[in-house]
């Protein structure tokens, strides 16, 4: 059994990779994928703590399940927005989506 720190370290590495992708990739689909990666990293933490945290218990897995459900909903809505945007702007490049300016 690998110690808990190993799982956490792996999760941290994945999180940072996902963060980097979310902040640098141009294609909005990839941005979404990177966000999913970050979510997974967080989930891994939950599962690890459920198994061998300070207060291990099944609740950690339940949290993980909820998080997955929310992620699924997020992906569904995110993709719907993406499709709508693509239809309106004919682009999936995040740099074209700058309506938050001023």
């Amino acid at each position, binding site marked *: 059994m690998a*110690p808990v720190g190993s*799982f956490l370290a792996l999760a941290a590495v994945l999180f940072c990779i996902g963060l980097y992708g979310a902040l640098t990739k141009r294609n909005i689909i990839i941005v979404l994928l990177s966000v999913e*990666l970050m979510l997974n990293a967080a989930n891994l933490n939950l599962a690890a703590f459920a198994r*061998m945290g300070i207060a291990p218990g099944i609740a950690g897995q339940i949290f993980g399940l909820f998080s997955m*459900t929310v*992620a699924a909903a997020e992906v569904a*809505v995110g993709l719907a927005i993406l499709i709508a945007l693509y239809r309106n702007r004919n682009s999936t490049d995040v740099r074209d989506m700058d309506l938050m300016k001023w």
Partner: protein
Amino acid sequence: MSNPFAGWVWNGGTIAFFLISLVVVFAAVMLLQFRKVMYMALSIGLVFLGMAGLYILLNADFLAFAQILIYAGAITILMLFAVMLTRHDEVEDPPLRDPKKWLTALGCLALGAAMLWTIRNTPWSSPPAQPPWPVQKNVAAIAETLFTGYAVPFELVSVLLTVALVGAVILARKEG
């Protein structure tokens, strides 16, 4: 921090963890390195599968199952759909000499270093040999907790899913 493998015991579990970790990190890095969007989507599928393996290592069988179903299955396929619905031959632009990119990399590295340092310097209790739930009855344990202690959040999540479903339909529908 002299020996990163201090206290590390090589056995089946740790070897599996090591291998899966390698695969997952490799797939995650490839996700960022591929040019074609299609490959990227496929490599994240690999990450999701690796995650499921890790869950199994953590005695979270049901979570691993759900991971494969939802992430590796539904979400990856959904992403592929999205790729094909937009421009399935989409190619990410060649990387530019963008200072922002370097800055982002620096920030991510700093954050990661901070996290790793914290993990390293936190005294963790040694993992219990057995998980705190009956190993063979993981699903039953989850079900019991979910439907007793977490019934209300469970219902709320179902409402959330319904709303997301309706919202997604309305958003993606063609206007007019």
